[in-house]
């Protein structure tokens, strides 16, 4: 009875929290606030953190992770995962080196390396989206496969004679500022991905797939094509990160960037993306990457060993994944919900009287 009478009143704005709450009381805001707090704390307390070199080194260090975190966020929101990103970085690094050594110019070699990244992404995407295999299994396989090809192509040696001007491009800064040049392509990509995820129908489809891919299919989302596109993007952006990595260190090696996939995924999860899919926003992820970067930079300046850094980042990550669940469980036991028997009704933010009506309804 009461359900039918109240149904017309249940518009989104009627039952949702006020706008400011929806914008500010979010996981993303928490991560951004935490990042800002850690930065302020480090500036105040960590010797040399306010030095002129910090921002440059910090951004250079996190640039590959920032880049790959963009497509990784979308991939994880669909409920999939791409573990092969670091191996694609290694492969593009080796290709860039081998082709450049073979006499090709750096831009041409980089273009082919990007195409190789696209091909890697296509393989992942085909197996996951069209064959329907689980992404965890597929990308563990291609993690080994691409890394194997990379090491196989170059062996244990390194190619290091990159043209100076291209290497300078990777290590240079914008004019007199301390912002590395790599931030320009990153900014362009970041804007592109924000538009793609948050302001396009494609992006709505990404969330739909993560929440329920069958339902997404029946509402007209091309699930397979969406996943394919995401793995292609993941492949090509990973290759770009691999090229940056190679030029920054001036060294193409088969084992370049080993283990980066875990750093990327850690940052994405820390940034508020649900590993089960369907939830997460890019600004939270970018804050997550910066947070991990700042923590490790500050701890290194304090000469804290890398193990301690890993422990802190690990604890932060585990806490960030566990806390929402623990809190959800805890809050569901709070006594203030008067009508646990009628959870749908408790959604209404009506006055106490209507809550009373509901309670009576469920009692009778």
């Amino acid at each position, binding site marked *: 009875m009461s359900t039918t009478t109240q149904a017309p009143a249940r518009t989104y704005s009627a039952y949702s929290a006020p706008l400011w709450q929806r914008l500010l*009381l979010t996981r993303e805001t928490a991560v951004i606030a935490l990042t800002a*707090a850690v930065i302020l704390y480090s500036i105040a307390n960590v010797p040399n953190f306010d030095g002129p*070199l910090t921002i440059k080194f910090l951004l250079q260090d996190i640039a590959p992770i920032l880049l790959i975190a963009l497509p990784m966020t979308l991939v994880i929101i669909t409920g999939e995962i791409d573990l092969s990103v670091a191996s694609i970085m290694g492969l593009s690094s080796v290709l860039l080196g081998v082709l450049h050594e073979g006499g090709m110019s750096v831009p041409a070699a980089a273009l082919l390396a990007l195409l190789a990244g696209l091909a890697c992404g296509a393989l992942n995407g085909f197996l996951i989206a069209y064959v329907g295999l689980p992404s965890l299994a597929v990308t563990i396989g291609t993690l080994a496969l691409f890394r194997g090809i990379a090491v196989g192509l170059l062996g244990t040696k390194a190619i290091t004679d990159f043209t100076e001007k291209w290497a300078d491009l990777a290590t240079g800064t914008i004019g007199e500022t301390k912002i590395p040049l790599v931030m320009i392509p990153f900014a362009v990509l970041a804007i592109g991905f924000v538009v793609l995820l948050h302001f396009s129908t494609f992006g709505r489809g990404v969330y739909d797939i993560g*929440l329920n891919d069958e339902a997404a299919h029946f509402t007209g989302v091309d699930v397979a094509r969406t996943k394919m596109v995401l793995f292609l993007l993941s492949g090509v952006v990973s290759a770009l990160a691999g090229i940056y990595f190679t030029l920054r260190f001036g060294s193409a090696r088969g084992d370049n960037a080993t283990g980066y996939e875990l750093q990327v995924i850690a940052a994405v999860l820390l940034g508020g993306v649900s590993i089960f899919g369907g939830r997460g926003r890019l600004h939270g992820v970018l804050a997550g990457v910066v947070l991990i970067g700042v*923590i490790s930079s500050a701890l*290194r300046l*304090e*000469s804290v060993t*890398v193990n301690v850094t890993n422990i802190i980042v690990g604890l932060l990550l585990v806490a960030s994944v566990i806390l929402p669940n623990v809190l959800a469980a805890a809050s569901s036991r709070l006594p203030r919900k008067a009508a646990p028997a009628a959870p749908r009704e408790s959604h209404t933010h009506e006055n106490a009287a209507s809550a009373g009506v509901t309670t009576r309804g469920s009692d009778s």
Partner: protein
Amino acid sequence: MKFPTRKPTALAALLLTATFAFAGCGSDDGGDGGSGSDGGSSSGGGDLSITMLPKNLGNAYFDTSTDGAEKAADELGADFEEVGPETGSPDAQVSYINTVAQQGKDALIISANDPDALCDAIDEARSADVKVVTFDADTNPDCRDLFINQATAEGIASKQLELIADEIGGSGEIAILSASANATNQNAWIDMMEKELADNPDYADIKLVDTVYGDDEDQKSFDQTEALLQNHPDLKGIISPTTVGIAAAARYLSDSEYKGKVALTGLGTPNQMREFVKDGTVGSFALWNPGDLGYLATYAAAALVDGTISGEEGDSFEAGELGEFEVGADGTVLLGEPFTFNADNIDDFDF
């Protein structure tokens, strides 16, 4: 769906911030400890601050070199610390080099994970007035101030021949168990050994009959040792210029009928070889003493910082108990001849 998670999310936001507070406390404690010593060095002004950056941490070889460096730093009254990545990759080292530049340390002692990849970072550190000394593994000569060389290729090659010649009494068939077929160091040493065998009259009766490759894999080196002994029944000695190879070969020999009959020497580490030296499988083997290497690198760094030397060829400096050293070509300082480990001294080492 959305509603039930909203309140918890808000709480999560708060608690996540609380987590930060704990993390903050953690780094605060570290900060006080760290800034205490850092503050001491920077306010002292003239105090010497040295950072040591091995290829990776948790490696007994580098623990030994760090012990040596620490001892030298104590003697010099220098502020010393060791930092490093978990894995031996160049990109991980770059972050630490950058950190040293940010901290404005006086000197950096580093074992490079890549000869070229670190140069940009090292250049940046040097332009921040950090003196850079490489040890164990060098970078390109033009990007560091000094390289402390543990041993020359010639020294390593001739030392191993000397040891094997000793063991087999100066005549007989020998074979080499190397790392991989394209391992740069090993191939250079093998070339030199072949040359010296042909040229040196002392070795006229020694014949190198085979060179096999164990790829620095324990099992493969073990199998190759077995194959060597079967293919060459008259074999009297094996040289394995790689730590993996010599340990695997020793393990094979110690359980076989050839124990004590076929001599084995090469480059090994005391911890790997201890049981085989004690049970008589191996008489002696060579390597350098990483403790001395770290000790010398620290004195060299101090000499660079205080201006005693500039890294030019011909400069000389005192290195505590190791005596006086001279800078050679390409800014290289040679520790000396390889060190011979045998039953008498092996228990003095732990790496």
